């Protein structure tokens, strides 16, 4: 089965991103293909490398990064949502005159078309949100 996953909430505030991570990991471990994880709304905040969660808590951003490294997962942050919430890569920094970036490795910023495409190409779309 080919899956598309949509994440609507940021890390820590809502459990939605935890659920999305555990679901995605379980699907990959069962041998399913995850075509793309698309981060929308506050979900784009999953893609910042600047978090420092408490040592006795899970590291939500790093978990995604490690999963992406292991399974060559496509982690896409919606560009419009990212601009509103201050999620920036090199290209965005240059285009919008920002003096820093905060995107984590393995994440990329792209358009909403990537969500539509994922929904078309995949057998199932699974949405996690508030």
């Amino acid at each position, binding site marked *: *089965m080919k*899956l598309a996953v949509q994440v*609507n909430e940021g890390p820590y505030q809502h*459990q*939605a991103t935890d*659920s999305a991570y*555990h*679901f995605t*990991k*379980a*699907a990959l*471990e*069962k041998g*399913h293909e995850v075509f793309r994880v698309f981060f929308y709304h506050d979900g784009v905040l999953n893609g910042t490398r600047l978090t420092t969660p408490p040592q006795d808590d899970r590291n939500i951003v790093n978990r995604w990064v490690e999963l992406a490294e292991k399974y060559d997962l496509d982690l896409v942050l919606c560009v419009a949502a990212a601009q509103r919430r201050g999620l920036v890569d090199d290209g965005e920094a240059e285009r919008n005159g920002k003096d820093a970036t905060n995107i984590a490795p393995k994440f990329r910023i792209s358009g909403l078309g990537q969500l539509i495409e994922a929904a078309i190409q995949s057998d*199932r*779309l*699974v*949405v*996690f*949100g*508030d």
Partner: protein
Amino acid sequence: MADLYTVNKSPFEKNSLEQAIRFSADGASILLIEDGVYGAMAGTAAEGLVKGASGRKFFALRSDVKARGISEDRLIDGVELVDYAGFVDLVESTDKVQAWL
């Protein structure tokens, strides 16, 4: 085959479970996750939602049930506990997923 409905809201906080049931077709599977697992508790003012929904199969995510201190003997009869692998299987074995947030 029918659809899989995911519900992640407490039935005491929002009507997502009520609406998912109301709009679900006969044969639907309804999976309670996150705060949605409170809908699987017996003896509450909301238990009628699940108990009264004949023709639907109810599931609850075990890790979320346990995190909230709901012991298995307090679950409504017929609610089946699944882990994330079981969640994936439900997605595969149904037509599509509707998230009732």
